[in-house]
């Protein structure tokens, strides 16, 4: 179970991380500018106008101001759905693959685009209405995202989301696309980042921006960090419990076979061989447990990710690294859990063990 938990939880946290990175990359976002020191996406607050100054930085192709918040939809049935507010002519909005209806225009006040998965979960066709934070929105189009994560998002006009969140003129992040030559040159990217971080307002005051590559931004975000920490924290707990269970199993096994071990000692088996036998048995048990746990973990994440109540928000990612780590962890558990029983077995006196009933 510990291995299944490792596979499932770590798979989910990695899935969330990689899905988010993919979305940024799919929209052509090279850098993300946020207020310095802010790691939590939804609490960051920047002046939208900073985007105009960043646009003037050499090497920057375009800037997409983005206001994102997590909302509840479907009468509270779906929680934590990202709602993005983007300019209708911004490169992020333009890169959406709208498969039903059309893109948003300046005239679409309180219009919304739904990801295909979200539209299906809410059963909202184009032209339908839905309520977001007590405001009625009309579904203007449905887009097909790159992955499950993006398919469970909604996009509205930036100005509408700012009004809805009562944050006029504010954005949570500035998404930056670099020109082709700059994006492929690490030194040039570093130069652009320095230039963005040095941008000043009309009064000559630094804006206090931090520009980081999209991947780094996602990896260091509080949301992803929390998911990762919870996954590994729960996994660590499961592993401790698993080790104790294995220790108990092996201890029972040794106690039940005291006479048998006594016979082996009487027949001349060295202590080291008896210890190895118990340890190998624990390791074999762990290896079998790990294999079963990996299969269970993979099935569990597949089932969870396809469950209706999960809203399809999570995409599991069971990488070879996670499987290998699970196997190694299981074997370490086996060695730890088998050590004490092995030590007990090694201390058995053959004469006493043979008399043991």
């Amino acid at each position, binding site marked *: 179970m510990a291995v299944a938990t490792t596979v499932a939880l770590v798979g989910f946290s990695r899935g969330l991380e990689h899905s988010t990175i993919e979305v940024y990359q799919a929209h052509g976002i090279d850098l993300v500018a946020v207020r310095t020191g802010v790691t939590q996406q939804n609490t960051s607050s920047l002046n939208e106008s900073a985007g105009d100054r960043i646009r003037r930085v050499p090497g920057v192709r375009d800037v997409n101001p983005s206001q994102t918040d997590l909302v509840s939809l479907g009468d509270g049935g779906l929680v934590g759905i990202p709602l993005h507010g983007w300019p209708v002519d911004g490169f992020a909005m333009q890169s959406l693959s709208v498969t039903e209806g059309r893109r948003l225009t300046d005239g679409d006040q309180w219009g919304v685009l739904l990801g295909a998965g979200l539209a299906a979960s809410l059963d909202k066709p184009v032209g339908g209405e839905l309520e977001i934070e007590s405001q009625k929105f009309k579904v203007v189009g449905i887009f097909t995202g790159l992955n499950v994560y993006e398919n469970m998002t909604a996009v509205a006009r930036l100005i509408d989301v700012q009004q809805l969140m009562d944050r006029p003129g504010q954005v949570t992040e500035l998404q930056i696309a670099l020109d082709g030559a700059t994006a492929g040159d690490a030194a040039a990217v570093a130069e652009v980042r320095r230039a963005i971080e040095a941008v000043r307002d009309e009064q000559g005051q630094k804006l206090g921006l931090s520009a980081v590559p999209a991947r780094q931004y996602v990896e260091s975000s509080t949301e992803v960090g929390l998911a990762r920490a919870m996954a590994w924290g729960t996994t660590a707990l499961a592993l401790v419990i698993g080790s104790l269970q294995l220790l108990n199993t092996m201890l029972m096994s040794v106690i039940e076979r005291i006479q048998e071990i006594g016979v082996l000692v*009487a027949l*001349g*088996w060295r202590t080291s061989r008896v210890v190895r036998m118990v340890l190998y048995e624990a390791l074999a048990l762990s290896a079998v447990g790990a294999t079963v746990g990996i299969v269970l973990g993979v099935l569990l994440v597949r089932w969870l990710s396809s469950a209706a109540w999960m809203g399809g928000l999570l995409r599991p990612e069971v990488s070879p690294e996670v499987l290998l780590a699970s196997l190694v962890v299981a074997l370490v558990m086996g060695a730890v859990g088998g050590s004490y029983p092995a030590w007990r077995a090694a201390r058995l*006196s053959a*004469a006493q063990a*043979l008399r043991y009933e």
Partner: protein
Amino acid sequence: MNDSLSNVERPALLRVEHVSRLYPDGNVTALCDVSLSVRSGEYLAIMGPSGSGKSTLLNLLGALDVPTSGEVYLDGQPLSTCRHLAAVRAHRIGFVFQSFHLLPTLTAWENVQVPMFEGARTCRQRGQRASDLLALVGLTDRACHLPAQLSVGQRQRVAIARALANDPPLLLADEPTGNLDSQSGAAVLDLFDTLHRKNGLTLVVITHSQEVASRAQRVLWIRDGRVTLPQE
């Protein structure tokens, strides 16, 4: 008593000098100042009532236990100074138990191989040796059977084959026919006779049975932890 072999001129394989064994937990003196010697190639029976200290003595002879005082010598070497008693048990001594003590999940052939893991034999050599020994005890056709699929007599013969696995000069048997019917018991004793006569094996057998003792060359009596004179 079988006295077809004369051992008088042979050196002592086992020598016990003033050995006592006290169990402090129960404040019991299981053996008190016991001295005896077993010559190489000798067939010795040790008789005595329950609780007389027979099994304690066998454990000391077999390096399964250490005396509280006194010394046990195997081939002239004091066991108390031996750093590798496991190696002594593996290569110098074969054990046959009353309850056979075969490993229940291993076949007869695999059980016979168990002591051979402490040795330099290859896997193939172990297998061949186990087959040879099963043939010696007349159980070739039972090689692939688990202990539960064998009769008690067959189990004891597998245990004897196992005891001979590393070709030890000394075989210690604790009530080897205690759990057997008379026919199986006789077969086991015949096997002991053969091993003694043809292979020159030194045998020390603990027994209650006068019939078993009658097969030995010499009988020692033990009572209340002390070796006494032979009794009629």
